[in-house]
């Protein structure tokens, strides 16, 4: 299905045509049925992703952060069409027009696939232990009939060198590599088809700091050299601040704030963002002791029964009666930043 460019409906994109636009997600939803009992009767649904809209421009690194269980991985898996979205549109643009990934048949999807790649969180389980490194990195090239024979070997060797591995490592098996090296293999595989968009789901959280620094530097460097866009899912807000151009904050299946990294970190517009930033532990014992943290009181809501009104209101220290009744829209607050809080203009939230 081809959709013309003016069908861009996400709130972030105020209608202006933007040649650099690569991906426009609008109204994305993914509900999982909840089954109970012997007959596995459906008794409810988990609204893992509940109306998410955002855009990614070419060459841009967008951070996706937020509460555990808020649907970040599910968004990533929907974009990759590893999950079939319940509703919404995922438009992937080329120079002329956008293609809606949601409506594509399996065959059409195969043509698009090379343009999107995912790097998984766990370098230990995401690589097939019975394949050599050469086979792992070369597989996408073979499956998509991009290269074979000596050309294949050359391209694999180049990819390995690109991520700082030795061309001789080709014939070794994943278990012979450290966690950081395996993550490099995962990155080499993801970049094999020169994707336009890389979805990295917590690519460095399983790695220790000095290796993490190497991988982050590698991603930044590769992005400059090859110029792909990236959705970077992470819990570590310090890492996200360091590497991302823009950041989206998720809470209970929705984006509650999205904006330029600097703006969002210095002047958050949503109370959840404020709480998140204040909870980041900083590697400085004295400063850490003197810091005050926004404590989130109240019960953590569940995606199977989201509260009425603002989804954050049961835990928000600023909540007013309006917040309990009315769902706040994601709306422009400051330059290049959107938030979904009734009180954004009134509050003076603390950043870092």
């Amino acid at each position, binding site marked *: 299905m081809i959709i013309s460019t003016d069908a861009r409906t996400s709130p972030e994109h105020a209608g202006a045509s933007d040649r650099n636009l690569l991906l426009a997600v609008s109204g994305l939803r993914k509900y999982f049925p909840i089954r*109970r009992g012997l007959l596995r009767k459906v008794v409810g649904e988990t609204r893992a992703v509940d109306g998410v809209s955002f855009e990614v421009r070419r060459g841009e690194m967008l951070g996706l*952060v*937020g*509460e*555990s*269980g*808020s649907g970040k*991985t599910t968004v990533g898996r929907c974009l990759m069409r590893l999950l079939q979205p319940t509703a919404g549109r995922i438009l992937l643009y080329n120079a002329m027009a956008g293609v809606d990934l949601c409506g594509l048949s399996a065959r059409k999807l195969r043509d698009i696939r090379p343009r999107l790649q995912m790097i998984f969180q766990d370098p*230990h389980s995401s690589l097939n232990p019975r394949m050599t490194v050469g086979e792992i990195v070369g597989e996408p090239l073979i499956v998509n009939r991009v290269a074979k024979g000596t050309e294949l070997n050359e391209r694999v060797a180049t990819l390995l060198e690109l991520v700082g591995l030795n061309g001789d490592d080709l014939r070794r098996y994943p278990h012979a590599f*450290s*966690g*950081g*090296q395996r993550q490099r293999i995962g990155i080499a595989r993801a970049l094999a088809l020169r994707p336009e968009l890389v979805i990295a789901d*917590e690519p460095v*959280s*399983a*790695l*220790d*700091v*000095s*290796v*993490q*620094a*190497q991988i*982050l*530097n590698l991603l*930044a*460097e590769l992005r400059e050299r090859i110029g792909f866009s990236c959705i970077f899912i992470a*819990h*570590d*807000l*310090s*890492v996200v*601040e*360091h590497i991302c151009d823009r950041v989206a904050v998720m809470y209970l299946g929705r984006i509650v704030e999205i904006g330029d990294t*600097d703006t969002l*970190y210095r002047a958050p517009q949503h109370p959840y963002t404020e*709480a*998140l*930033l204040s*909870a*980041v*532990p*900083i*590697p*400085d*014992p*004295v400063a*850490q002791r003197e810091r005050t*943290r926004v*404590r*989130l009181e109240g*019960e*953590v*809501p*569940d*995606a*199977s*029964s989201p509260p009425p009104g603002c989804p954050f209101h049961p835990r928000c220290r600023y909540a007013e009666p309006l917040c309990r009744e009315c769902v706040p829209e994601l709306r422009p607050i400051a330059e290049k930043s959107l938030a979904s809080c009734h009180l954004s203009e009134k509050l003076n939230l603390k950043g*870092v």
Partner: protein
Amino acid sequence: MEPLLEIRGLTTVFPTDDGTVCAVNDVTFSITPGKTLGLVGESGCGKSLTALSILRLVPAPGRIAAGSIWYRPKGGNAPIDLVRLCPHGDAIREIRGNEIAMIFQEPMTSLNPVYTIGNQIAESVALHQAADRKEARARAVEMLARVGIPNPRQRAKEYPHQLSGGMRQRAMIAMALCCRPALLLADEPTTALDVTIQAQVLELMKSLQQEFGMAILLITHDMGVIAEMADEVVVMYAGRVVEQGEPEAIFYKPLHPYTQGLLASVPVLGRRSKARLVAIPGTVPRLQRLPQGCAFRPRCSRRMPVCVEMPELEGASGAADASPNADHKVRCWLYDHQHGR
């Protein structure tokens, strides 16, 4: 206060095709009730194996080759050397879960996929606390709520694959904490959690620590979590302790070049710069091919000829730029009287 756990010269080895390797090499430290010892270091340096050695869960063909682990059980009994217990015997089984609990690094490996998480936690409560089924169940749900699992009554009926990564990790934390252990071995307990839930879990650990004096061995690569939680920090590299001291000493006056590199490579919130992070060059040596002398030597920018010999872990008093302090120990020739600058 007398230590709850005293590890002396612990050495855990693995036979491999290239000979025996020491994954944990002559490690000595102790933990006091109510305190938290933070264990940090490069991947593969032996942190998990140190914790597994305490519980006598070293995977075969690995074994403890030397050293002792003195543990002072509940009720004021005489300390026992865990190293001397049979790893499959009743004595160590009595201690596991009941006295010493562990949060394992990989939640999926310690949660059973075919049982609901509620059943798994209740099972462990019933086993160790002699509670009846109903009581055990209630305790399980209560603990799930305390680690921040939404709708805990409902979630208790779900299987591990139905939970998000962070929820699984919290289920495991609930399982470890529900038996009120005297010592908690927490191996990367919060890596999969968002920071607000992480804060909640860390605070829960602290409050249990205050309530009944639980001691914690905290393994993490998040230096921020160490700064928040630790009363003492042990830094390991390639199986050995290379630096040890109070958090202030480690963070503000790191002595070992590895510790210095580690701290420099952490991005700090609010100090965004376009510059690349300062990564330590190179990779950790494989245990089979450890360089002679200081294991950090090939990556160290300050190495000297003497570094081909193994430095001792010693009080940092010899250092020109460190205050004489026997509590701050380092294993590096730079701080040796003769060889240091």
